[in-house]
């Protein structure tokens, strides 16, 4: 192919190599540079569960994908138009996903006979014609890196490890993005190792210089991208795990309560523990427990003692916590349980994403044990959703489950930094000096009992998992009392809906097809609905944050549509929930591959189910204006 990479407002770049090549770092640094260049962005880290899988194997390929550009970006992109592949395996596994005519940059010297065999290839794809639909740019990255860093006297291994930064330098040049942030990161990271520091800085600069000077204009050229139309506020890049950590910290401050975060390491939830550790100054302490059960146990203990207990895990760990969750319901203690969902069942695919724990969250406990459930839609949305989860836990004295997933936890996006003072303070049920209430008196708003903690001589009491008398809190086996307590627990969760904002339509208008989704599919659904609206289909996007209870107007809202389509990354759990709660018919779009939805898949399903617009379609300008009104990264 002679044609170069198409000039566009946004691009999808995928970095791929061995899991020890520093691909994730490369991607993260490119993300920062992209943000600093004023682009909106969305990323998808996609790595194997093995820490350092055998080099050169297909299953050991680690990748990082980013879509960035001068318009609103809500997904990491369906098909990369640039692939950087460090070895034959990285090329081979990613080839099927590339956009037609994509640019492939390969490390030329990595295509040796031995490395081809490692990737189970019998012929060299660079030479057998299998890449003729793409632009291929062969650069001897490994060799050029060694040349660039040889004056620093590092060993062969350390020298070779600089190649990710060399290649990053080249890709940064391609999109005319700044190197300063990466240089600063190298300075800080290797502050105590001069040789490694200088070698990495030199590699970064050499890759960049290569782009400028190499005679490759026929195949490799610069593609400057315009800035995104950002609101005039400060932005930052943020991953879901970071936003969760900040959301918990902010919620603690809004509630004026310290947090004890108790968890046990599990992929992909551990990042939250890492981010919270070290936020002691901001009122969060972290405790690494001996197992999942101990983690929720300690969190319950903390809430019992008057701090807010928080625990976090992924599906298998949440399963272990389930009995204790029932205790928190019975004892009526506030608690936040974060589930970063991953592909299952059992160990499944720990580093791959899925939305298949919705039923576990809503229905998955012994007895009638209702718990409010919320889900975050994007990395940045974790911040606000977390604050809402804490608000509900404290208002109703109940455990709350907050669903995110492996994609949201690790992916990053651009985030307009919110004004924390714009959030309402979070009230709680701690006894005040003036209160003459008993522990088991309930407020009308939340049906919550008093949050009396040890140390308070006025409210000494005993509580536990045995059914308690609705008035006195004492052990009770009385049949009528158990009925009353069961009803109360149900009412307590139902009443949460009274405090929720009405469910709104995200984009589009009522009448045709409602695409109802939840969690991390927001970005793909957003883009698919936006494009379908432009295509003249009668479609609207409705995205749920609250899954239990559902917003009270949802049934009425959906009654205004001809059809409902529920796309989700599971076998139909929200679809089942909507049928159960609203007695409506819904069509399903399900994907359980460990990967986020491609926009194209959602669009195709919309096209299948949506009627053509009954009213005149808005012009593209009108749709564009609507988008601009919402700003970027807001979702």
């Amino acid at each position: 192919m002679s044609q170069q990479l198409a000039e566009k407002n946004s691009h999808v770049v995928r970095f791929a190599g061995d899991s020890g090549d520093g691909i994730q770092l490369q991607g993260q640094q490119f993300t920062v540079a992209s943000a600093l260049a004023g682009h909106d962005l969305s990323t998808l880290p996609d790595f194997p569960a093995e820490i350092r899988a055998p080099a050169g194997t297909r299953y050991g390929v680690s990748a990082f994908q980013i879509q960035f550009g001068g318009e609103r970006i809500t997904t990491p992109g369906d098909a990369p138009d640039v692939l950087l592949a460090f070895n034959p395996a990285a090329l081979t596994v990613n080839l099927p996903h590339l956009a037609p005519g994509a640019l492939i940059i390969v490390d030329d010297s990595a295509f040796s006979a031995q490395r081809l065999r490692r990737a189970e290839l019998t012929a060299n794809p660079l030479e057998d014609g299998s890449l003729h639909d793409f632009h291929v740019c062969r650069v001897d990255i490994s060799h050029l890196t060694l040349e660039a860093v040889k004056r620093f006297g590092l060993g062969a291994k350390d020298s070779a490890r600089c190649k990710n930064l060399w290649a990053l330098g080249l890709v940064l040049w391609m999109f005319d993005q700044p190197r300063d942030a990466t240089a600063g990161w190298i300075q800080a990271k290797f502050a105590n190792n001069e040789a490694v520091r200088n070698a990495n800085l030199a590699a970064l600069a050499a890759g960049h210089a290569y782009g400028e000077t190499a005679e490759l204009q026929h195949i490799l050229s610069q593609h400057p991208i315009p800035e995104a139309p950002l609101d005039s506020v400060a932005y930052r890049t943020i991953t879901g795990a970071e936003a969760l950590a900040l959301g918990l910290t902010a919620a603690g401050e809004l509630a004026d309560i310290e947090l004890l975060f108790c968890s046990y390491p599990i992929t992909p939830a551990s990042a939250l523990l890492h981010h919270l550790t070290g936020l002691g100054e901001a009122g969060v302490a972290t405790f690494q427990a001996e197992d999942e059960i101990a983690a929720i146990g300690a969190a319950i203990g903390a809430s019992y003692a008057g701090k807010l207990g928080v625990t976090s895990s992924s599906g298998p760990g949440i399963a272990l916590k389930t009995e204790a969750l029932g205790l928190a319901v019975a004892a009526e203690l506030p608690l936040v349980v974060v589930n970063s969902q991953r592909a299952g069942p059992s160990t499944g695919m720990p580093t791959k994403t899925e939305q298949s724990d919705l039923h576990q969250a809503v229905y998955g406990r012994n007895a009638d044990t209702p718990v409010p459930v919320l889900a975050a839609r994007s990395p940045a949305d974790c911040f606000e959703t977390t604050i809402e989860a804490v608000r509900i836990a404290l208002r109703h004295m109940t455990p709350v489950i907050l669903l995110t997933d492996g994609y949201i936890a690790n992916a990053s996006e651009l985030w307009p930094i919110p004004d924390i003072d714009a959030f309402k303070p979070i009230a709680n049920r701690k006894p005040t000096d003036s209160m003459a209430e008993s522990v088991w008196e309930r407020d009308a708003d939340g049906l919550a009992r008093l949050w009396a903690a040890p140390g308070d001589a006025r409210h000494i009491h005993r509580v536990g998992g045995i059914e308690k008398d609705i008035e006195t809190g004492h052990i009770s086996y009385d049949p009528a009392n158990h009925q009353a307590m069961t009803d109360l627990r149900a009412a307590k969760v139902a009443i949460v809906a009274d405090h929720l904002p009405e469910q709104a339509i995200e984009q589009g208008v009522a009448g045709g097809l409602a695409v109802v989704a939840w969690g991390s599919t927001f970005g793909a659904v957003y883009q698919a609905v936006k494009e379908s609206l432009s295509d003249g289909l009668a479609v609207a996007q409705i995205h749920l944050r609250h899954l239990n209870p559902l917003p009270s107007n949802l049934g009425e809202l959906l009654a205004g549509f001809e059809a409902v389509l529920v796309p989700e990354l599971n076998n139909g759990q929200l679809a089942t929930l909507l049928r159960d709660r609203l007695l409506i018919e819904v069509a399903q779009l399900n994907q359980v591959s460990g990967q986020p939805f491609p926009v194209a898949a959602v669009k195709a399903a919309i096209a299948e189910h949506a009627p053509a617009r009954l009213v005149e379609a808005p012009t593209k300008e009108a749709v564009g204006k609507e988008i601009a009104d919402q700003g970027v990264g807001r979702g």
Partner: protein
Amino acid sequence: MAELSFKDFASDQEVRWCPGCGDYSILKAVQRALATCGAEPAKTVFISGIGCAARLPYYIESYGFHTIHGRAPAIATGVKLANPELDVWVITGDGDGLSIGANHLLHALRRNIDLNILLFNNEIYGLTKGQYSPTSRIGTTSPSSPGGSVDNPVRPGAFAVGAGATFIARGIDIDQKGLPGILTEARAHRGAAFVEILQNCIVYNKDVFESISSRKTAADHQIRVQHGLPLLYGGNQEKGLRLNPRTLQLEAIQVGADGVEDVLVHDETNPTLALMLLNLEPPLPTAIGVIHRRQAEPFEQAFWNAKPRARRQRVVTLLHQGNLVDHRS
């Protein structure tokens, strides 16, 4: 505050154990100990798991949390970390603490968090109607082992030594003279204090500790250990324990006949001696009292050493860290 008597630590709830159960005596000993050491009901928390023993918090006038099977040490850990000023007690049994919850017990002990852990050992599952437990002796006949159990029992004290416990004691349910003192010592210990209490289940494992606890036979079947004093027992303290250097085991000797100078002096700081004392089997006597005690930094102290106990930083500063892109014009 006026001095409290043991009755001030009785809640208004009716005690619902079987008549004659050893738990009644333990409850009384706990209430006596609390009164003796000036505990404050509002700052005292009893946390239990599941089982007969686990009902105890309902009967004590203090804060109480009856939780789920085996998890009391984990929940107590959260309570103590959240508020280190509280006096936190864990009530567990042989099934709760050494079967379903042995993991949490292990970690509470090795972390050395300041909890007073009372394990009521009756060598049987009482509340589920009499199945053999992890401390049941081989051959225990029960509904789930009609031909006699074949499992090797775990020794609670030896388990605690293995976990690195800094305080290990053993008491007897009906010993109203000795048990409150042991509990007072446990409470005074800074760190995890583990007390195994031999408890008679009158329905499902009656008199399993009869030889140790009965007045007639106790003198020859138990040895009261005290730091710095020789390990003597028998009605007239005529018997003693000495170390056989060839077998590295304790053996009984007759004081006088075998010479008194060989009798070991109890050193509660020595975990090796503690293990030997905790592993004594008939015909040697069962060790009662504070068997092991050493000082080490409690976990909650180490936990909070490195961090502030209260919020000192506002979240707004955290929000504006990281990779900022400033589009404010």
